[in-house]
C-alpha cells in the first residue's frame, strides 16, 4: 500500500517537474513555521521557569525575562521553607512503589485480557473503559470511607492502592499485547513453561520497551498526583512534593522566585527518568514487537 502510494507520488513529481518542487518548499516552510511555533509554546514555560528561578519575586511580577543573580538566594529560601529530604523521600516511595505495583497489575491484566478468551471478556473490558469516564471527584468520598475502614488514612498504601489498577494502563498493555506473537507463547508452552513463566521469561523481555514507556507514564502520574494525596494524607511528615509546591502558590505574598525553584525541583525526577528511558519510550509508543 505505502509502496504504491510513494511510486504514484514520485511519478506525479516527475510529470509536474519544477512546479512541484516550488510547492514542496512552500509546504515545508509552512510546516517548519508551524513546528517552530509549537516548539516555542512548549519550551517557553520551561524557559520562564528557569529564568524566573534566577530573579526576585518583584522582578518576576514585573515581567523580567532575562537571567538574574538570585538563583542561590531563591534556592536557599526554598531549602529554608521546605523539608526537601522528607517530601522527596515520600514522593519517591509513593511514585516508586506505585509505578512498580501499577506495572505489575496492569500488565498482567492487559496480558490476560488479550491472551485468554472468555464469553464475557469484551463486555467486562467495555465496562472498564466506561468507568474511565467517571470523574475522580465522584469516587473520593466512598474511597475515603473505604481507606478509613482499612485503617489506612495518612499512609503510603492509601495513596498508592487506588491507582494500582489504572484502567488506562490496562488498556495500553492490552493494545501492546496485540502485537505479541502467539507463536512465541505456543513455542514456550511446548517447551513446558507454565503461564506465569511465559509471562515472566518470554512476555516481559519481549515487551521491554512497552514497560519502559508505561513506567514513565505511571511514574509521572504518581509523582504529579495531587488531589488524592491531598485528601488522604494528614500530617507534615507524610507531605509529598506536589502538595508542598501547591502551598507555596497559595501564600498571600507568594515568593515567585522560590515557586520557580520548587517547580524545577518537582519537574526534575520526571525529566531524568524520561531521558534515561527515552530511547525505549519512543520504541514503546511505536510498538514493542517488530
Amino acid at each position, binding site marked *: 500500500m505505502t509502496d504504491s502510494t510513494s511510486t504514484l507520488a514520485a511519478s506525479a513529481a516527475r510529470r509536474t517537474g519544477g512546479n512541484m518542487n516550488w510547492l514542496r518548499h512552500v509546504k515545508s516552510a509552512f510546516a517548519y513555521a508551524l513546528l517552530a511555533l509549537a516548539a516555542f509554546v512548549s519550551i517557553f514555560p520551561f524557559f520562564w521557569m528557569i529564568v524566573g528561578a534566577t530573579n526576585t*519575586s*518583584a522582578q*518576576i*511580577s*514585573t*515581567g523580567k525575562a532575562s537571567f538574574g543573580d538570585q538563583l542561590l538566594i531563591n534556592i536557599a529560601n526554598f531549602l529554608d*521553607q521546605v523539608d526537601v529530604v522528607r517530601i522527596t523521600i515520600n514522593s519517591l516511595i509513593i511514585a516508586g512503589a506505585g509505578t512498580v505495583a501499577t506495572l505489575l497489575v496492569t500488565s498482567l491484566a492487559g496480558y490476560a485480557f488479550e491472551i485468554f478468551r472468555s464469553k464475557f471478556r469484551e463486555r467486562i473490558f467495555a465496562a472498564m473503559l466506561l468507568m474511565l469516564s467517571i470523574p475522580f471527584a465522584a469516587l*473520593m*468520598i*466512598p474511597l*475515603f*470511607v473505604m481507606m*478509613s475502614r482499612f485503617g489506612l*488514612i*495518612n*499512609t*503510603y498504601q492509601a495513596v498508592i492502592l487506588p491507582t494500582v489498577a489504572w484502567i488506562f494502563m490496562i488498556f495500553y498493555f492490552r493494545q501492546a499485547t496485540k502485537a505479541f506473537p502467539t507463536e512465541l507463547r505456543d513455542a514456550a508452552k511446548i517447551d513446558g513453561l507454565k503461564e506465569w513463566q511465559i509471562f515472566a521469561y518470554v512476555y516481559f523481555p519481549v515487551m521491554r520497551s512497552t514497560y519502559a514507556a508505561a513506567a514513565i507514564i505511571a511514574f509521572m502520574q504518581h509523582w504529579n498526583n*495531587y*488531589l488524592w494525596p*491531598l*485528601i488522604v494524607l*494528614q*500530617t*507534615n*511528615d507524610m507531605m509529598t512534593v506536589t*502538595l*508542598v509546591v*501547591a*502551598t507555596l*502558590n*497559595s*501564600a*498571600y*505574598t507568594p515568593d*515567585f522566585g522560590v515557586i520557580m525553584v520548587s517547580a524545577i525541583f518537582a519537574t526534575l525526577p520526571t525529566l531524568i527518568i524520561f531521558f534515561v528511558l527515552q530511547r525505549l519510550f519512543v520504541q514503546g509508543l511505536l510498538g514493542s514487537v517488530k
Partner: protein
Amino acid sequence: MPKLSKGWRRSLGVAVSSVSMLAVTSALAETVTVWCWDPNFNGATMEEAAARFQAANPDFDLEVVIFEREGLEQKLQTQLASGVMDGLPDIVLIEDYSAQKFLLSYPGAFEPLGNHIDMSKFAQYKVDIASVDGTAYSLPFDSGVTGWFYRTDILAEAGYSHEDLVDITWDEVLEMAETVYETTGVQLMSVGVDSATATRPMMQGAGSWYFDADGNPNLVGNPAFAASVETYGELLRSEAIDKSNGWNDYTGAFLSGEVASVVSGVWMTATVKSNQDLAGNWGVAPVPRLDLEGAVNASNTGGSSWYVLSSAPQKDLAIEFLDTIWGGDIDFYQKILVDQGAFGSLLAAREGPAFQASDDFFGGQPVWANFSTWMSEIPGVNYGIFSYEADNAIQASIPDLTDGSKPTEQIVEDINNQVNQLVM
C-alpha cells in the same frame, strides 16, 4: 521467586509497623493540630501564639499543617461529607466567604465558640460572618478591611493629594482616572477580567450582599448590586483603567508602576511593600463608596477565621489556647502585625503601640490606626453559601459589561437567572 516474596513481605512489615508507630506517638502527645494555608502568614502567627501559650503550659505542643487554601477546603469538605473524623485537626482556618457554606452544610461539625469565648471582644462584622442563628462559631482572625493604596508621586503629578482621595465615590474615581491618565499617561488602577471580585467590596461598603439575611439571592431590585455592576462595567470600559488577567498580572501592575493605585484588603500591605524601591511613594486612603444612601467609605475583602471541630481530640485545650492568646494577648497582636502584617480582629489590640505606629514606607502615615478606624465602620453582611457562584455569574457577564450596549437592568437579570440556576 519465593526469596523475593519473602523480602517483600519483610519490607512491607517494616513499613506497616513504622507507620503504626507514628500514629501511636502522635496520639500520645498533648498536641493541638492546626490546618491553615500560608506558612509565612497565618501559619507563622499560630506558631507565635503557640510559643506564648507554651510559656505558661510547658506540656502544650502545636503542629501546624499547611495545605493550599482551595485544597484545604476540598479536603475538609470531603472528610466532613464522608463522616469519618479520623485525622481531622483540632483547629482549622476557613476563609470568611466560605464560612456559612461549612456551618450550614455540616451542622454539629464545628464547636460553637460563642458559648466559651466572649465574642464582644472582636470586631462585630467578623463575628456576624461566622454566626448561625445568633450563635458564633469562629474565633475571628485576620480582617480584610479594605484600603486604597496609591502612589503619592504619580497622583501629585496629576494634581491630587491625600485629601482628594478621602470620602469620595466611585464616579469621582473614574473622573480622577481620566485626569491622571491624560496628565501622566499612567492608568489609575487595575481591574481583573479573569475574576469578578471587584464588586464585593463595593457591595459590602453599601451594607448589602448578593444574598439577603435568609440566604436568598438579592440581585434584582437591589440598588447596591445594580450600582456595583454598573461601576464594574464602567471600570472595564474606561481606557484610563488597566485590565489584568490573573493574580501575577494584577500585583505586577502596581509593583512595576504600570498603574498608580490598588484597592484591596489590608493583607495586600506586605505585597505592596515587597518593592522597597518605591518606599516613601505610597499612601493609603479609605476606599471609595457607591453613590447610594447609607454607603460608607469602609469595606472588606477576604479575611479568615479559626474554627474548632466538635470531634477534636484536644477540643478543650484548643479552646483554652484560642481564648488565652487570640482572645486576650494584646502584645501578641502587636507582634504578628509587625512580623507578619497580620491585622487581627481583637478590638483591644488597636490600642497597642504597633497599631499606633506610623510607617515611613507610606510617607509616615499612621496606616494601622487608619485601618483600625475603617474596620470599626465596616457594615456587617451575611455572605451566605454561594458567594463564589455569584462571582462566577458576574464573570460570565464580563463580555456584556465590556461591550456596554446592554442596559444594566438586563445584565442584572441575566446574572440573577444564572445564580438561581446554580443555587436552586
